[in-house]
Structures are given as structure tokens and as C-alpha cells.
């Protein structure tokens, strides 16, 4: 996959679409040359972020969530954004402990930001499986 080529997926903020994002994420990661373990790590983490982003929207909301994939030479960055989304307050509840532990362990970089277009930025480096050992 060429560098500097961004792929953007935009979905309604609903739980039924998270599996579609996982599918697309695995397709992008596969094309970036990620091995199966790294693809799985990325799917897991993108899902965790979407879960919280979806919870931040009310049921009736017509807003969209955007998932931007930015392949680079030896890494893949995924930016999750949406109208009014704030990464800094996304994982504030007690029950976010599991999600945060997963993100911190499996990703090479996790940036939570007040910028709604990139509220969460995940970076995964090719060939580096997240380990807990």
C-alpha cells in the first residue's frame, strides 16, 4: 500500500456498525502487510474506541463517526473522530479500566485529544505484536 494514502470510513454512531469497522480495519491492516496477530490487535483496539465513541452520542443523533486510516512505511495510524467528540473525556468512567488497559498494551501510541476530528489517535507499528509479558 502506498504511503500518504488515507482511507476514511464514516458510519452512523450505532453499535450495529462496529463489526463493519472491524472488517474494514482488518482489510486495511492486511494490505499494510500486518501479520494476523497485529491485525487482531488493531481490530480489538479500534472496536474499544468505537464502543465509547458510540456511547457518547444519544440514540436519535444523526451525527457520523469517522475512522481515518493513515498507512505509513512501517506503521498504520487510525484516527477516530466525530462532531463534538472529545477524546480527553472518553474513558472517564470506572468501567473503562479494561478498555484502557487493552489500548495501552496493544497499541504503540494512543493519543486522546480535544480535537473532534481526531479525538482518538491509535498507532500500530508493523511486525510488533502487543504483548503482555
Amino acid at each position, binding site marked *: 500500500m502506498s504511503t500518504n494514502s488515507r482511507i476514511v470510513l464514516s458510519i452512523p454512531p450505532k*453499535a450495529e456498525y*462496529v*463489526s463493519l469497522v472491524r472488517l474494514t480495519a482488518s482489510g486495511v491492516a492486511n494490505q499494510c502487510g500486518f501479520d494476523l496477530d497485529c491485525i487482531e490487535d488493531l481490530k*480489538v483496539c479500534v472496536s*474499544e474506541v*468505537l*464502543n465509547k465513541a458510540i456511547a457518547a452520542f444519544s440514540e436519535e443523533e444523526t451525527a457520523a463517526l469517522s475512522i481515518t486510516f493513515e498507512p505509513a512505511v512501517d506503521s498504520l495510524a487510525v484516527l477516530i473522530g466525530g462532531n463534538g467528540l472529545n477524546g480527553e473525556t472518553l474513558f472517564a468512567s470506572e*468501567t473503562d479500566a479494561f478498555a484502557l488497559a*487493552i489500548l495501552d498494551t496493544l497499541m504503540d501510541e494512543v493519543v486522546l485529544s480535544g480535537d473532534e476530528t481526531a479525538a482518538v489517535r491509535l498507532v500500530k507499528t508493523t511486525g510488533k505484536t502487543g504483548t503482555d509479558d
Partner: protein
Amino acid sequence: MFELALEKDEDKLSSQISVAGEIDLFAAPDFKKRLYEAIGEGDSDVVLNCTDLTYIDSTGLGILLGALKRVRQNNHNVYIKNLKDSIRKLFRITGLDKAFILEEAQ
């Protein structure tokens, strides 16, 4: 989507539950309902067979923890069998490998 099947042991000493498929945010409400139905009052050990469980997120892990608490209140335990490596990794990351009784990796 996920599947859940319950086989109560003849001797009623344990509930054998198998879960398969993907447990994510969308599946979570239904999974919680089905799992809690399956463990009932929590008055026996629970053996969770995960051979065909391909994916679970933190929401699903939280539901498992809730079920464990219920079973523990009756001094029973939850045993987890046949976890895939990718999911076993999530149990370790979240410390849940210490809360549940995980069958050794093969």
C-alpha cells in the same frame, strides 16, 4: 453475532456453557441476558467452553466478571476452557486471568 448453549450436567454439579462467535457492543445486551439465564441463581460451578469464541471486547469481559461475582456469592467458581490465544491475551491484560480459573494453554 454469538451463540450460547447450556448443558446442565446430569449430577447438576456444574453448568456447562459454550459460547461461540463474536461478542461485541452490539451483542452485549443479548449476551448478558442469555448468560445470566444460563447461570440462574449461580448455585453451581460454571464451565465456559470458548472453543468457537472468536472475539470478545471489554464490554463482554465486563459481563463475564458480573457473572463471576454472582457465582462467587454462592462459593462457586467459573472455569474457562479452550480460549484462543488472542482472547487469552485480553484476559491477561485486564487481570481477569487471576479472577477466573483459566485452563492452561495447550
